Structure formats: C-alpha cells, structure tokens
C-alpha cells in the first residue's frame, strides 16, 4: 500500500483527483492503456476490504436514522455533507444548514455526497437510465436551460461502454419501444432486467393504458409502467456482446460473492452483498500502472506561468478523527479533477484556475424530488427489493417541456420510508410516542392490535418520487469565502440554491398528476407538505416541499465557447489544455435521468482524448490495445 507522503515529488503521466465513480473509471482505462496514473483520494480506504465493509454494515444497523451517509465513518479531514444538516429554521420559516456545506440561498440544497474511497457511488441507488436524445438540446427545442455541444449519437458508443463497466441490467427492447431510445443494431444490456416489484405489477394492472391530464397543456398523458435499467447484478444475458455473454462483478474484497441481487432492500445507503455496482469493483480490476493513495486531500491545482497545469498540492493526514496534515506536491503531464460536482468547483475556485469564463461553480443542478404518498386499498408488499424497479416515463418528453419542467415518475418500493420515516414512524405513532420528549404522549395500542394495525398500514404504503429536471441557472452556484474553512484549512463550499419557476410549475403539474393517479388507484392519499419544513415554498397558491436527489451537476459546465463555459466537449478546460474536469459538473442540462451513467459515458469519452494528448506528448510508445467489444455483430438470442 502506498502512503500519501511517499508520492511527494514524484511525476506521473496522469493525476486523478478523487476515487469516486468518474475518477475510478478514468484511471481504469488509462491504466489499461499503459499510462502511469496516480489517484489521490481525500477520504479513507476502509471500505475496500471485507472487514471494512462489515464495519460499515454494523454502523448502518446501529444508526438511528438510516440516511445515505449513515454507514460511513465521519472524517474531519475530508468532511462530507449529510442530509441531516438541513434543519427547519428556528422561527419556523425556511431552513438552516448546520454541517459542512455553508448555505445561504433561498432554498436548501438538501442532499449529500460521500468523501471516502469509492465516493458517492458507495451509497447511490444504482439506477442507470440513459438521457433522451431531446434532453441534449433543451434550449433549442423547448426554450429553457442550456444545450450540449454534443448529442445522444456522440455518446451512443460510450453509453454502451459505460453499461459494460457498470454492469447494467435492463431491457433494451422495452427502453426502445416505451421511451424511444435508439440503440446500436442488436445491442442488449449485459444483464436481463431486474424483475419488476409486486407494486409495479399492481400499478400496471390498475393504470396501464389509462391517462391523466396535464393542467398546463390540457393534453392527456398515457400511463405505462416501464422497467428501469439498473447498475445491479441480475441474470447475465447470453446474447450480450455478440453472444459472448457477461460475467457479473463480485463484491470488492470477497470474490464470487454478490454476483446477483438478493433483495436486501437497502441499496442506499449500502448494499450488503455488493450486487449493486460500486467503484471499488472497478478498482479491483485496475492494473499495476494505477496507484491509489488515500488520505490525500488535494488543496490546489498548480499552474505554471504559461497556463499549463504542473500538478497538484495535497495534504496528507493519518487520523481522520484528529487531522494533522503535512503538505506535499506531485506532478503530472495531465491532471484530471473528478472530485464531485461541488468539490471540483470548490477546488478550482480555491486554486484560481480554469475560470476565465466566470462559470466555475455556477449552474448547480440537482433533480428536486417531490414525494407523494398514500395507502393502497390492499397489501402491496412494500420494503422489498431495490428502492425502485420501474417508473412512468411519458412525463419526461415532449412539448409540455415548453410549459413546465418534465419529470421522471419513480415508483418507490420502500413504502413511506423517505416520505415519512416509515416503518419507525408508524411504530412510534401507534405507541403514542411524539417526536419530542416534551410533547404530550398519545394513547397507545398494544398486543395483537398493534401488530395487526402496523401490518395493515405499512403493508399498504405506496409512494411516488417525482424527479424533476432542473434547468441551468447561473445564480445557483458554489462559491468560497476564506472565512469558512474546514479542519485542514480548506475553504468549505458555500451554496446558493433555488428553483426556477419552470421547475415550480413542473411541481404544480406533477402534484395534479399525482392526485389523479391516487384517484385512479382508489388509494387514500396522505401527501402533506408542512409549512415549517426546511424546503417549504409556495407557488401559484399551493405549498410544496422537496428533497434533493444527490445528483449534483453543472458546476464546470461544458459548452462550445470558452467565453461561456468551463470545459469543451471533451471535458477539457478551455483555459488549461492539460486539465480535465470529469464528472456531472460538466453537464449543461440533465434531463430526467439519474446522471451517473451519462457521467460515466462522458468520462470514458474523455479518456480517448486524454490518451491522444498523452500520445502526442510521449511518442514513441508501445501500447497495449484495449479490446473493442463487438456490439455490431450480435448473435440471434
């Protein structure tokens, strides 16, 4: 194991900052191509052994509130935000933010990320829908947000590659038919789809073929339950890769384990068997050209007078509890920053690089999630299987986008866990235990009555997640201020976050759709948006609350002009030809797809450019070619 201080003063072909999903994939491909890669990771490497994983499992079991970061140990040298940091304001109006993120915007950015080896991909849910072709040109087509300098066709090949690296399970035929996604001739995902939950089946039986009205367009939208692609091990598809099939990746640190999802129903915050993709699985396949150093917080990207990046400065520490750090530098021909949308922006601002456009940190986007929930007439088997297995997809597309933000209507398999803290809140409620010891207690029910009422209530819980597209707004931004620093003296991210009227109008339309769906289901709708919730706002006469999805994007936006964007279509800094900023921060618009698959595709696309840059710098060089998968020659299934 290489320790952080040992690489001081060394020189590499490439330095990758951050061992999350993006950085790990970049390092994998560049290592395979023979380049010497150093990956500097701010967090600890405790999760990539099986005992470390089991420790995280126990921390998860013990935690009182099972939020996404619950299984992972706190680290004061490389702090992470938590969803528990966003609290109601003391006067009951608005929010206050008490953790690592400094927030002073109109609405809270109420979501987290994880700074540990593997990054946020340790606790992602693992849904991997592609973006729609129309998502890449929202400005031209629908008049909001920003267009991409490239389109779906430019990413097609890299989507396929990303689906291989992540190991995607899904049904291409259904994705093509129900959503209109183009795939290469004969292409199938590496694995068959994750089976749709019982709830999905009930909803399909009750709703498929029916329609609901969009209040703003006065158009009927057809309901159809569509299975979602997952980065989660399922049954390999023999027809994949021209009939070569696919071998699912096992757990990091435990070979031949976790090769198929077994229904632990805890993908976020942690998959106990690691059937869900996480970057540590890719790290196990890194070759010896790649060196990972943890406990190395990159504090500056170093630039020479001629504008070339020379390397980075980093802080090495030993104890994440009481950090004492020493400062070091390391050099490389190319630096790739892949530290997460918010942290990459923070680092660039602190380094005063790459920002001649004044766009660094701006255009911060997420998918604001509006939850609605109710009780079905009968038992639907909640809290089983992955967090979501299907959705209603028609709200993502079409001319309604000119009127309001589109959304993915995600069917939640875990009852009211996100909406209302079930099942703990149900138990407390029936026992008459309020949320504070100072509030009066209610009447309790016990014995069989308690058991039966809990079974009846929880067993009928249904919830929907309306995940709205957020449009790029320059005012939604990450900044820094030397007055706000972490324990190592690094500037903390300051966020200013708000929702545009386009998004708010989307929520209005979505709430209407939700009411109609509950009515069609004969369900008892229980949605409630308390006015003292941190994210509460009013729009057009109604009150709303929303959650963050954890999909931070846009902060080093890609474009076709150096004046108004931070990176070019290769995620290369306009200002520094040997600096790449890789991650969701490059995305100019995010559609209604969870962003990581698209991020991975972009990362793999950048690798080709980086490889060419390095070839130019280093020729002659003997290279080992990477095998090209034969998607074009499918075998009859």
């Amino acid at each position, binding site marked *: 194991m290489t320790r952080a201080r040992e690489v001081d003063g060394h020189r590499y072909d490439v330095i990758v900052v951050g061992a999350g999903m993006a950085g790990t994939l970049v390092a994998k491909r560049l290592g395979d191509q023979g380049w010497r890669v150093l990956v500097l990771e701010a967090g600890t490497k405790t999760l990539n052994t099986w005992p470390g994983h089991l420790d995280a499992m126990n921390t998860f079991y*013990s935690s009182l509130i099972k939020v996404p970061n619950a299984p992972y140990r706190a680290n004061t040298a490389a702090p992470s935000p938590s969803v528990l940091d966003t609290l109601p304001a003391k006067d009951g109006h608005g929010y206050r933010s008490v953790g690592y993120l400094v927030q002073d915007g109109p609405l809270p950015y109420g979501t987290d990320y994880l700074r540990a080896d593997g990054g946020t991909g340790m606790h992602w849910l693992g849904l991997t829908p592609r973006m729609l072709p129309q998502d890449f040109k929202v400005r031209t087509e629908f008049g909001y947000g920003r267009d991409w300098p490239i389109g779906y066709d430019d990413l097609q090949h890299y989507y396929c590659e990303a689906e291989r690296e992540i190991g995607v399970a899904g049904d291409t035929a259904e994705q093509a038919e129900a959503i209109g996604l183009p795939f290469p001739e004969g292409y199938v995902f590496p694995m068959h789809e994750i089976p749709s939950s*019982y709830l999905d089946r009930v*909803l399909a039986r009750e709703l*498929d073929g029916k329609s609901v009205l969009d209040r703003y367009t006065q158009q009927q939208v057809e309901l159809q339950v569509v299975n979602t692609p997952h980065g989660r091990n399922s049954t390999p598809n023999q027809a994949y890769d021209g009939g070569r099939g696919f071998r699912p990746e096992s757990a990091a640190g435990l070979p031949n384990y976790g090769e198929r999802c077994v229904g632990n129903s805890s993908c976020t915050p942690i998959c106990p068997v690691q059937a869900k993709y996480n970057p540590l699985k890719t790290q196990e396949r890194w070759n010896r050209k790649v060196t990972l150093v943890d406990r190395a917080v990159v504090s500056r990207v170093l630039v020479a007078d001629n504008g070339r990046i020379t390397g980075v400065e980093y802080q090495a520490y030993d104890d994440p509890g009481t950090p004492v750090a020493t400062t070091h530098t390391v050099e490389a021909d190319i630096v790739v920053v892949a530290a997460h949308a918010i942290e990459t922006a923070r680092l660039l601002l602190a380094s005063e690089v790459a920002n001649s456009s004044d766009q660094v940190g701006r255009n911060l986007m997420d998918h604001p999630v509006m939850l609605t929930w109710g009780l079905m007439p009968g038992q639907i088997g909640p*809290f089983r299987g992955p967090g979501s297995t299907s959705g209603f997809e028609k709200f993502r597309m079409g001319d309604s986008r000119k009127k309001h933000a589109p959304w993915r209507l995600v069917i939640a398999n875990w009852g009211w866990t996100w909406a209302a803290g079930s099942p703990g809140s149900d*138990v407390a409620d029936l026992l008459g235990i309020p949320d504070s010891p*100072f509030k009066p207690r209610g009447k309790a029910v016990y014995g069989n009555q308690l058991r039966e009422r809990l079974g009846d209530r929880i067993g009928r819980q249904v919830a929907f997640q309306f995940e709205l597209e957020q449009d790029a707004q320059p005012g939604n931004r990450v900044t820094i201020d030397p007055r706000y620093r972490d324990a190592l003296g690094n500037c903390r991210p300051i966020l200013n976050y708000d929702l545009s009227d386009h998004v708010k109008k989307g929520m209005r339309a979505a709430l209407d759709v939700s009411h109609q769906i509950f009515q069609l289901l004969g369900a008892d709708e229980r949605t409630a948006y308390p006015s003292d919730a941190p994210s509460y706002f009013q729009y057009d006469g109604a009150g709303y609350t929303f959650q963050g999805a954890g999909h931070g994007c846009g902060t080093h936006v890609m474009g076709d002009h150096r004046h108004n964007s931070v990176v070019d279509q290769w995620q290369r800094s306009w200002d520094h030809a040997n600096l790449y900023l890789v991650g969701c921060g490059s995305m100019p618009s995010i559609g209604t797809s969870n962003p990581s698959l698209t991020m991975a595709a972009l990362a793999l696309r950048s690798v080709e450019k980086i490889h060419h840059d390095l070839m130019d710098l280093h020729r002659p060089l003997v290279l080992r070619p990477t095998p090209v998968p034969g998607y074009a020659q499918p075998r009859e299934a």
Partner: protein
Amino acid sequence: MTTGVPLTPTALASAAMPEAPPPALPDRDVERFVELSVALTGFDAFDLHGTGMARFYLRTVLDQIGDQPYHDFETALEQAGLDPEKLQGEVAQDLARAIAHLWYLGVWPPLSATVHAELRRQVANTGFTASPEAYVQGLVWSAFHGHPQGAKAPGFGTWAAPPPGAPELPPPGRHRRQAGDGR
C-alpha cells in the same frame, strides 16, 4: 492517614473494575419479561425468544431505568391483568411504550421528560439502537411480512411475489403484452 473506609478485598476489586459486567440475569426473570412482552407486542413467546434478544433487552431496560422501577412496572402490568392499555400512571404507561418500541425496532426511545425526571435516571434521555443485531431482529418487519432492510435478504426476484392473500401478477410491459393478457 485514614480514609475512613476499610479497604476490603471486594471494594478493591470493584474499584479496579468499575465496568465489571453485571451478574447474569436469572432465567425466570427473562421468562417473566417475555410474558409481559407478549402482552405488549402481540408476538408469542416462541417468536420473542426466537429473536435471541430477550435477555439483552431485559438488561437494556434495567440499565435504562433501574431494578426497582422495572419491578414496579412488572407488578403494575400484572395487576392490570396483562392488558397494557389498562395501565395506570404516566410512568407505567411510558415504560410500556418504550419496551414495545424496543422490541419492534431494536431502538430504546427517549422517555417523556416528566417520566425521565420522576425516575431520577442516571443516563441521558436519548434514543439509541440497542445493538446492530437489535435492528435486524426488530418485530416490525414481520408485522407486514417484510424483512429488515439490509438483512435477512429473501433472494433474487422475491420482490415480485405477492404478499400473503394477494394474487400473483404478471410483470408489466413487454412481457405482459406478449403473454397476451394485457389490457
């Protein structure tokens, strides 16, 4: 110099081991605790013993509220004919809530502030998961025929199966239409 306290071997031993484990709880105390817990939870003694948590939960309760208040609670619940809803007094009622909560979620909850004060508890009035295993053994999951999230995984594809009493259903989408029973 004298301390005024005779230095006996026992005093020395306990001074050297302030965290000495308490003596094992007699089986009959555990049995009694489970009987009361049956009335509180609606799960039978077989199920409660089957969690493997009974002795540990009794220990947790005693640590949280002390022996005498627990014995008073036992007596009160017996006098109420093992019907927790007939319990009189704020203390007994709140302890019933807390013990049921512990069984259902593996979490000891904060008591009501007045009950906490009345019991003169030596510990902070905060909620906590009794142990990692306590979460996994929570009764709430089986109350709705589920499994604890993150444990006791039921196997690939089991989430497609109907809960008890509900009909089997075909998968949505393509397969369903191909199967020819779509609407």
